């Protein structure tokens, strides 16, 4: 076993053994892994199976059921656009189209250069501010296609740790 794999397993074990909830299940453990490293690698399926005394197949059945799990490492940045009805009504399709076009994607996935993961979200929970998108889990409401593009472009250009902090510390209107 290489050290890298060993490290990954250690991180995973730590994530699944230090869950807050008293009840540890395959699902809760997978969510903990997703929170810790952003995706569910094969090793996580195995470790969760061991911890919860189930088989990898059972765990995989759970992981593949819920749409919030991903199985490859995410890109540095994650952009999500809500496509719930309220957002849809108020222009999410044009936001989606603009971002997909910019990232040269046809559906959700990683942009070619690997810097951005793009996802659809069924509801980000802020319907009143529709259309809503989320950039590295930071919500932006009442977003227009051009504005969304500006965010994505910035992420693209500033691919680096700084970009996240930048969004967290500035208001959207400031940038508009």
């Amino acid at each position, binding site marked *: 076993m290489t050290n890298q794999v060993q490290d990954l397993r250690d991180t995973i074990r730590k994530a699944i053994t230090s869950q807050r909830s008293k009840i540890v299940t395959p699902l809760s453990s997978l*969510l903990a892994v997703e929170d810790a490293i952003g995706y569910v690698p094969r090793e996580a399926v195995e470790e969760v199976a061991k911890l919860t005394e189930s088989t990898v197949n059972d765990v995989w059945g759970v992981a593949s059921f819920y749409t919030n799990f991903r199985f490859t490492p995410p890109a540095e940045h994650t952009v999500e656009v809500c496509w719930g009805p309220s957002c849809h*009504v108020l222009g999410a399709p044009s936001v989606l189209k603009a971002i997909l076009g910019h990232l040269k994607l046809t559906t959700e996935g990683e942009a070619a250069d690997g810097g951005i993961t793009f996802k659809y979200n069924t*509801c*980000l929970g802020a319907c009143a*501010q529709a259309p809503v998108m989320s950039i590295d889990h930071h919500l932006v409401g*009442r977003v227009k296609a051009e504005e969304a593009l500006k965010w994505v472009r910035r992420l693209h250009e500033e691919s680096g740790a700084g970009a996240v902090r930048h969004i967290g510390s500035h208001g959207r209107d400031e940038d508009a």
Partner: protein
Amino acid sequence: MTEAYGVLVESARGHQRTLESKPRIRVGTAICGQAAGALEVLEALRREVARRGLDATVSEVGCLGLCYAEPLVDVQFPGESRMFYERVTPDKLPPLVEAHLVSTSIPMATLGAPGFPGIPDLYDLPMMLNQVRIALRNAGHIDPTDLYEYIAVGGYLALDKALSAMTPEAVLGEVTTSGLKGRGGAAFSTGTKWGFLKGSQAPEKYILCNAEEGDPGAFNDKGILESDPHTLIEGMILAGYATGATYGYVFIRHGHEGPIERTQRALEQAYEAGLLGRNILGSDFSFDAEVSLVGESYVSGEETALMEAIEGKRAMPRYRPPFPAAVGVWGKPSNINNIKTLAYVPQIVSNGGEWFAGIGVEGSAGTAILCLSGNILRPGMVEVPMGLSLRTVVEEMGGGDADRQGEVFADGRAPGWGAERRETGHGAGLQGDGRGRGHSGVGRDYRRRRGGMRGGHDAAAGGLLPVRVVWQVFPLPPRDHSSAGGPGADVPFRERAVRSGADA
């Protein structure tokens, strides 16, 4: 009153006095606020207050329901009413702080509580008019992360009353009398449902609280958790007391950090204050609760699917019988209640079932909590008495169509939007088809459709809309502003009592 609760109330009063002794600025940071930029506003505000060295308290509150006005900031001087600023941006903050807190001369607020001539009264706003706030009584008013603020406005009083002066049967009786029906969708009598669980002799029983709000356009469950998580926790403990359950779970979809964090924090506080755990408030009753996360899947909102998710499996619905009240989570008797259902319980226990039954209309007691979104002038979250007409809510409170050309549509399973009478109410009663009513998204159609059913694919969006949503299309009658009200018009709409902490 139990001794333990007395101590808590004392502390809460002290805490409140400290808070009220200096100017206080609140920022609404629920999800809707955040999406509108409230976190940036909050940060800018803190910076500004610190820069100027002002002796003022900055606190976060949940959602007042006026989502269209977010980010919403209000300033309150000791002994005065709250003055609101809507759609605040970080760049507007320095002048705002300068004008309102430093010069303290000219209130620039756009909204306000009564007493400031020239500033519209918050409760006269079209969106606040008609509202009866029971479950949302504290939303947007108190700091959801502050247990003492909740106690100061009467929080946990119902629990104290139940534990010190009521038998479990009496609590169950009040809930039954209230006519409360499940807000999760099936509109089944909550009292009856609790009765099933109470009837089970098993030593371990569960109260499950469903916040897996998968319906598009509905965000009121999350809204309650973000704005006033203690009211849910109190409702859960009361449910546990009434039914003999000993454990409660709140299920929230993974990824909704705000509701998760605030609920988790509230639970910790409740444990610390002896409101959860062993021998609650010194009584014989013990109850534990925790937050559990479920994965993203629309079907997890179905109660048996949710149970599978709780057990960590694929959320595939179970068949019935056996029913959850007999065999639920981990094979133990369980009750699943919607957040809204449980959030009513403290007020029902405090004020009595009769009081609740008096609100709303025959067969549909209490209020409906509705979310307005989509192509509407004033998106937001409102709580209105059952029976109020849909037109009143959408046209008058929500301001109607933003660009005056659409037709209104409502979630088919929504709170009781009876298609025939266009009133809020439990659809089961109104339509007689036995299908559940209870969710609460209201939106406006982006396309003109008439009287049809729609669902499934929507190629225009470049993908899928949730397949199960069935939209009922309501032709919009000619606009006539004089026809306000409805069958519930004579209900006292302004429930001033619930304004509580803000301008008490």
